[in-house]
């Protein structure tokens, strides 16, 4: 159940616990020799499901200047991208 750890847990811990439990049961353990030795980071925040309603979304570019972060995104929506 280690592969899903940390994902989507900001502001939605209960749902993630459920996802983890289900996925863990289905998938079994990951490569424990590697994963047991590597700690997870502290997730400060996240922005997910970008491109809702569309498909083939991806965040490709990221630039940071001090505390400001800018991310380039593209996705398809009704035949456009």
């Amino acid at each position: 159940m280690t592969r899903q750890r940390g994902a989507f847990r900001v502001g939605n811990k209960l749902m993630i616990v459920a996802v983890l439990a289900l996925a863990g049961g289905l998938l079994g353990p990951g490569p424990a020799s590697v994963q047991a030795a590597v700690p997870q980071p502290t997730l400060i925040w996240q922005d997910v499901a970008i491109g809702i309603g569309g498909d083939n979304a991806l965040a490709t570019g990221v630039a940071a200047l001090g505390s400001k972060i800018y991310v380039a995104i593209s996705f398809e929506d009704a035949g456009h991208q």
Partner: protein
Amino acid sequence: MRAYDAKKGYSWSSDLFYLKGGRTTGMAVSGSTVFVAGYYGVAGSGEEEVFLRSYDAKGKGLKVDSYTGAPMAGLYPNGVKALGSKVVAFSNYESAPGVVWGSIAGFSAKTGAYLWEADYGESWQNLISSQVNDITVSGSSVAVVGYQQTADGYKWFNVSLYSAVNGSFGSAWGARGNGVGNEALAVSWTGSIIGAAGYVTDGSGNRYARAVRIIAKGKGAGMTILEDFDLGYGENRFTTVAVDKSQVYAGGQGIGDGGRQMSFIRAYDAKTTDFLWGDTFDLAGLGGSVTTGLAAAKAGVYMAGYSLSAPGVTDWFTMAYNLGGGVKWRQDLNPFNQDTNKALGVAAASSAIVAVGQYKNNDGKLKGAVQAYAP
């Protein structure tokens, strides 16, 4: 384009603009302007062209939507980098089928307006093609990396410097192996140290991941090969590089034992050029690893990519190392047990490490994601 605060997260979004067959490929921020680069399909022509849009950095809207250079094909790399008041974009175009030429162009950081354009490759070099793969801006200069192909057919691993003020040529360093395929894919510049990385090919077709260091100013301004790295099977490349005050880091992938494609990172002393430490890994012993980004910060060096976690399933990874090479943490991401999850870039902000990429949702659609981690 979306803007975030390192501590608070989401801040604002730009307008959506619809460019059929398009994709954003890169971005850069100066003090007051954010630039977004990409390409799109030209209706009815079958061609692709690049775009560059500039926005107010505080979210007050679009400044300039333009690119006034030569027609350029989005099939080839394009992007933009900025530092202070200097903004430079790069792109590549075909002058004839399969004949690629690279170019760079300068823009105003204040207004976003186009200023100048320059070819990648001087006329006296008698080149038959060139391709820009990455640029970085430092002070009033821009370092440009890619390949330059001479009339004998050899592609040269090349690093060139131009003025970021007017695009005039400064200096260039080239190198090649005994094979025709040699190429620099990434560049980073901090202080007086330029790091570049890519690959060179030997006469038997073996490809080695090459990292180099250039001292941009002062004595010893030559290009020093840091390493030609091989996992043992002659199929390697560095795809990303980062430089801090004391080290040059190069990341990439290669074929290792069992035919597994592994990600690797290699660190070198920026002054002595000595190899310091390295790490090679895949997530589950199945290979399929691709390295997509590298960022250096005070607290460590960070690598983004993806790797097979099960047959046909890639997981996003963001890996953190301390400056001595110890693994600090790793984030794997596959939130809905789907087949496609990829980290596509990483950057260091003042108090957060930000990774970007995509994952497959539980409805089977690919979605974008941004995650910020404590360093």
